[in-house]
């Protein structure tokens, strides 16, 4: 029996008759929290967000209240709020739903947050490929402006703030917050080094800046509605609120599903919620949090100690879907993009596909990443073209080890983790690839098989 979703952020957006215009949003109780927020003290809203324990939904899972607390309020410089709507981690497609189907929820969440941090101006950095999403947001902002929900003297509160929608142009690195800021300033999106360039102190135009994900900003609206402590009761301590899991790959019903953190296991998500695998297929591997998160092998046992001291011993299907459990098994919940692979998947091809992506997206600023990631792509490409060598797995690993930890931003890790985890979990397939090709060559056949994933 399918497990029922418990929607908070996505509560209305797929209801029959629900549309993305402001009248529909107001009919569903929209902007009540903004009305409430502008009567509150900004620091009280920040305290509620802190109490809620909400962690960033963009990938890193850093507590949003803490991020806000780091904001330098004494500099005398203007404060900026930036919504990261670059949604570019492969496997993730949740922000797109909010932007297209419920843009006013985002605008309300943003204006509540902007008021809380006393931002002078807010931006939505939206990925360039969302042509329609951009137009929807532009229209929604004008609708909100007409009703004095943003712009000058919002709802007579004396607080003013506008939103500018800024389009990206196809670069993955703009999802990294300091790269995004560089892009917003009109430069190449080369990330900045931290310290000193923590956005909360030296962000946009070297002013204090908060960058939050679309889903996180929507959470703020709900935190104001129910209070931080009540919000923290959803999920488990340290893993509060709901998460929208975006499931893609070899399942019967790919899609987005919202549940409280830790309410379901990975097995329930795949088999009960997504209808299991295609007929006759067996689970081989899962990438649980967007393509940069480390892959999990279907037949592994995961053992260790959780943060709270309890021991765990899980199969892949037993892993609770939350931040800490996925971290405990050596991966991460990242942006919530769950990519499922069945036993028809060639792991060398899958890694070749991922390496192609990261080689294409490296910004080119740091040498280990600019040079190393294309080398990893070249090796996996050579492997699937019929020239695999038995030592390639070790070679790939050694390159990845020399990238991770040696770059300005986390892209170096994002590009290395797939390689390191694929080799750690599926090294036999990489070695076997070379042997198979050698055998075919010996038999007078073409060494390379026809590929499907690259």
């Amino acid at each position, binding site marked *: 029996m399918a497990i029922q979703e418990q929607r908070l952020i996505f509560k209305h957006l797929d209801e029959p008759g629900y549309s993305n215009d402001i009248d529909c949003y107001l009919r569903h109780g929209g902007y009540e929290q903004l009305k409430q927020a502008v009567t509150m003290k900004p620091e009280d809203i920040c305290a509620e967000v802190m109490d809620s324990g909400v962690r960033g939904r963009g990938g890193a899972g850093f507590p949003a209240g803490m991020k806000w607390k780091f904001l330098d309020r004494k500099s005398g410089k*203007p404060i900026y709020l930036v919504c990261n709507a670059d*949604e*570019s*981690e*492969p*496997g*993730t*497609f949740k*922000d*797109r739903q909010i932007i297209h189907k419920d843009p006013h929820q985002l605008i309300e969440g943003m204006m509540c947050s902007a008021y809380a941090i006393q931002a002078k*101006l807010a931006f939505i950095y939206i*990925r*360039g*490929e*969302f*042509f*329609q999403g951009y137009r929807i947001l532009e229209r929604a902002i004008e609708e909100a402006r007409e009703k004095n929900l943003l712009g000058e003297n919002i709802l007579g509160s004396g607080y003013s703030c*506008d939103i*500018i929608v*800024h*389009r*990206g*142009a*196809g*670069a*993955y690195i703009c999802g990294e917050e300091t790269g995004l800021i560089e*892009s*917003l*300033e*009109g*430069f*190449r*999106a080369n990330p900045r080094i931290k310290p000193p360039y923590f956005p909360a102190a030296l962000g946009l*135009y070297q002013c204090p800046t908060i960058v939050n994900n679309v889903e996180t900003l929507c959470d703020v609206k709900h935190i104001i509605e129910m209070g931080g402590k009540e919000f923290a009761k959803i999920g488990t301590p340290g893993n509060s609120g709901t998460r929208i899991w*975006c*499931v*893609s*790959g*070899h399942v019967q019903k*790919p*899609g*987005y599903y919202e549940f409280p953190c830790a309410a379901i296991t990975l097995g329930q998500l795949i088999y009960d919620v997504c209808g299991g695998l295609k007929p006759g297929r067996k689970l081989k591997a899962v*990438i649980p949090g967007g*393509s940069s998160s480390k892959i999990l092998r279907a037949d592994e046992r995961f053992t260790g100690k959780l943060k709270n001291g309890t021991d765990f011993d899980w199969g892949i299907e037993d892993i609770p879907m939350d931040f800490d459990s996925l971290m405990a098994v050596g991966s991460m919940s990242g942006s919530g*993009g769950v*990519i499922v*692979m069945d036993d028809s*998947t060639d792991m060398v091809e*899958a890694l070749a*596909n*991922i390496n*192609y*992506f990261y080689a*294409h*997206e490296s*910004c080119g600023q740091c040498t280990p990443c600019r040079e190393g990631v294309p080398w990893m792509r070249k090796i996996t490409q050579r492997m699937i073209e019929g020239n695999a060598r038995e030592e390639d797995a070790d070679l790939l690993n050694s390159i990845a080890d020399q990238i991770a930890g040696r770059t300005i931003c986390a892209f170096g890790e994002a590009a290395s983790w797939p390689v390191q985890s694929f080799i750690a979990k599926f090294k036999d397939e990489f070695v076997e690839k070379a042997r198979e090709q050698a055998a075919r060559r010996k038999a007078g056949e073409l060494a390379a098989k026809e*590929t*499907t*994933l*690259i």
Partner: protein
Amino acid sequence: MNLKPETIAKIDQLVPRYPTQRSAALPLCHLVQEDQGYLSNEAIEWIAARLELEPINIQEIVTFYPMLRTEPVGKHHVRVCRTLPCALAGAYQTCRRLEQELSCKVGHTSEDGEFTLEYVECHADCGHGPVVMIGEEQYNDIDPDKASELAAKMKSGELPGGITYS
């Protein structure tokens, strides 16, 4: 530069909204590209002058962001996502079918200038792979047979061309 009056109006409205002129560089590249189809040297120089920057400041953006282009595309700009979730759903097979149907190799524009076929990276709709974009419109769950249908519609003129910005 022969920009449409509505493009100029949009630019004039947009630039003063930003705290610095330079922040408007990427939006201006989008607007001029939508007006002209691509960013010529002349266009790059025009944008730089409009924002009181040097042409290299715009050039370095144009060469960084994949969606900005320095050459015109075919009448139908077809972009196939090839990233892992779409690949698992069969994106490479879809693209091969499109290559056949459109007589156009991926990464190229067809000789008659009708089609540009490209691989692109993740479009963030991975639950509906393979994802194909034609111009600004997105098409979901495009298996090879649906790709053939799309190709037929493009050839018959039923689907709008790639540059239909409004």
